[in-house]
């Protein structure tokens, strides 16, 4: 119907094709915006506006427990440097990240390589076993691990004693071992990373390996020179996600230490400090400042990763 009316209007003034296509195009655009609108609206309501609001909050003493709010200038930002708990919490988070991020890449990489090995039988069963714990709700898995890591009754220490380690650590009660315990718990959640790496490995063209075979390369060289570069984009993607994720690490330390961050402050993570500041003490101006500092650090780290990615991430030409 629309087309017909365009035809009669367009015949006199211009060639038939042009106006018809333009109108159709405009119409298509309007439809496009209509279908896009849920996200645009959601982005404005739940991302852009709150981001700006929280930036503004960093210059205020906003609190839900008081009706009025006043601007305090840079006081919150200065507080960051005078808040020993924030500095401790940031330190705990960085210390954890330095162990957890490399392991969170290497373990799924190793598992994917294992599952990709032509020597492995029963691949599907192993894949299911390694992926399975990822499906377990965080709450369940933390209580399961609290029990598994229990110094006296847990299976891990019973096993360690059986194999001759006479004095195994009391994982979650020990300042020295609690972060390593969290890393162990984290190993249960590598399923997604493993699966994406495995799928990419399976997509590496076999000609590359055949060519390397002709050159007499062994399995290790092939992994290092062909597999790793070919899957580097996925490694990079997982690296970015795990760096962002580790900044926001909350559920495991919060639940495993029953909300305390004990022993001492050894499990008091940055995000727990943020949560306590904003939702226990309702100091939302300072809480927003902590959130923005997290955002700035995450952004800087992501930017740094992207900057280095040109050196080690290989993107094959084409799609």
């Amino acid at each position, binding site marked *: 119907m629309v087309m017909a009316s365009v035809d009669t209007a367009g015949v006199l003034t211009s060639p038939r094709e042009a106006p018809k296509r333009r109108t159709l195009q405009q119409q298509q655009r309007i439809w496009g915006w209509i279908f896009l609108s849920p996200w645009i609206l959601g982005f404005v309501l739940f991302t852009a506006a709150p981001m700006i609001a929280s930036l503004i909050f960093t210059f205020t003493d906003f609190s839900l427990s008081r009706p009025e709010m006043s601007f305090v200038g840079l006081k919150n930002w200065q507080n960051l440097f005078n808040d020993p708990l924030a500095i401790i919490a940031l330190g705990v988070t960085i210390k954890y990240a330095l162990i957890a991020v490399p392991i969170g890449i290497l373990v799924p990489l190793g598992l994917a390589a294992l599952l990709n090995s032509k020597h492995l039988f029963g691949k599907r069963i192993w894949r299911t076993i390694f992926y399975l714990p990822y499906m377990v709700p965080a709450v369940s898995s933390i209580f399961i691990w609290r029990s598994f890591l229990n110094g006296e009754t847990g299976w891990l220490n019973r096993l360690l004693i059986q194999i001759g380690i006479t004095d195994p650590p009391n994982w979650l009660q020990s300042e020295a071992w609690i972060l390593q315990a969290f890393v162990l718990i984290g190993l249960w959640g590598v399923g997604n990373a493993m699966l994406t790496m495995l799928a990419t490995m399976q997509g590496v063209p076999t000609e590359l390996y055949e060519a390397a075979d002709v050159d007499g390369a062994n399995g290790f060289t092939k992994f290092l020179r062909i597999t790793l570069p070919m899957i580097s984009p996925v490694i990079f993607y997982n690296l970015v996600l795990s760096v962002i994720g580790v900044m926001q690490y909350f559920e495991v330390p919060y639940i495993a230490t029953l909300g305390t961050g004990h022993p001492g402050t050894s499990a008091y993570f940055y995000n727990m400090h943020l949560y306590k500041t904003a939702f226990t003490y309702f100091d939302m101006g300072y809480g927003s400042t902590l959130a923005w500092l*997290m955002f700035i650090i995450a952004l800087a780290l992501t930017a740094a990763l992207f900057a280095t990615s040109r050196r080690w991430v290989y993107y094959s030409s084409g799609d």
Partner: protein
Amino acid sequence: MAAVTYSKSVNTSPYYAVRLRRFAVTALVGLFALVLGIGYLLPFGNMALIAVKSQDQIAASGDGPIWPLEPEVYNYEGKDYPIYTVPFEDGTSRELALVKKGRQTSQFVDPANPDAGLVDWAGNWRGLAQVSTIAPHFDNFGIAWDIINFPRLFGNTVAIALIGMVGTLLSSIAVAYAFARFPIPGKNILFLVLIGTIILPRQVTLIPTYAFFAKIGWTQSWLPLIVPHFFANAYNVFLLRQFFMTLPRELDEAAMIDGASPFTVLYRVIIPQSWPAIISVGLFHFIFAWNDYFGPLLYLLGKPDLQPISVGVQIFNFQYGQRPELVQATSLMAMILPLVIFFFAQKVFMRGVVVTGVEK
């Protein structure tokens, strides 16, 4: 590839040596996988066996045997007596029921031969080993079920997850359709912004969002956990868009020429071809909502009637830390449904993970 390795090796070593080496490699790789697999499953075993231990056994010796055990008893003249392994001077030992405890001598009865009457045994009975049998206490699940009010938690979680799933499907399908098919100016930039939200820490929007929900009176209700899902989400849009782009445009164009509106095209042409992607998005959301802890913690604290299973189980377990068997039983109950869904829909699930993770 095998042929190449073979012809290379055959020059240096006899055929059977190659076979042997290949077998050894296979065995080693298999053994390695087995050790890792057992390592991954051990925490489940730890949980399952503690969940069926009796409260008495845990109280008596938490670090005792890993099996759920119950002391064996023998009914002698109308009363139950515990059975002990009793050593005798001739080097043999018999399993006897302790009838009369004494400091110097105790009296036992032999369950195999009760007519022989009581047997005197000199020594302290406290030094004897008690005989136990394996007795899993499945009633722990019933106890936990009642205390946490499992049906209510289950119903709340399913409701929150399903309503959110409908929301995310409706909105994500529409948005993915827009990105896949319509000539929107600045589409590539918008798509980058959408993908960029994946790496945006949630905390930076959290406080104003919470304050906003508090202001309009939505905290202490399900609305903050449901309504945002009606505005699409980057992972889901990405997955659906990737799928829509693989569908031939000719079909939509044919429908358009027949006068179908874009809504009709979406409903009649795109969606019927996209069930695999739609199902995996739906499942992802369901599992996400089922496992989500932080959202309900924030918005439903102090509202036990509305809480989903994650928060319900956590609060219960903080209170019942002294009952490890109940803690483990509830942890098991909270994970059953996600695991069942995963087992039945493993393929769809893993394909979805691969699309969002690999193609980026």
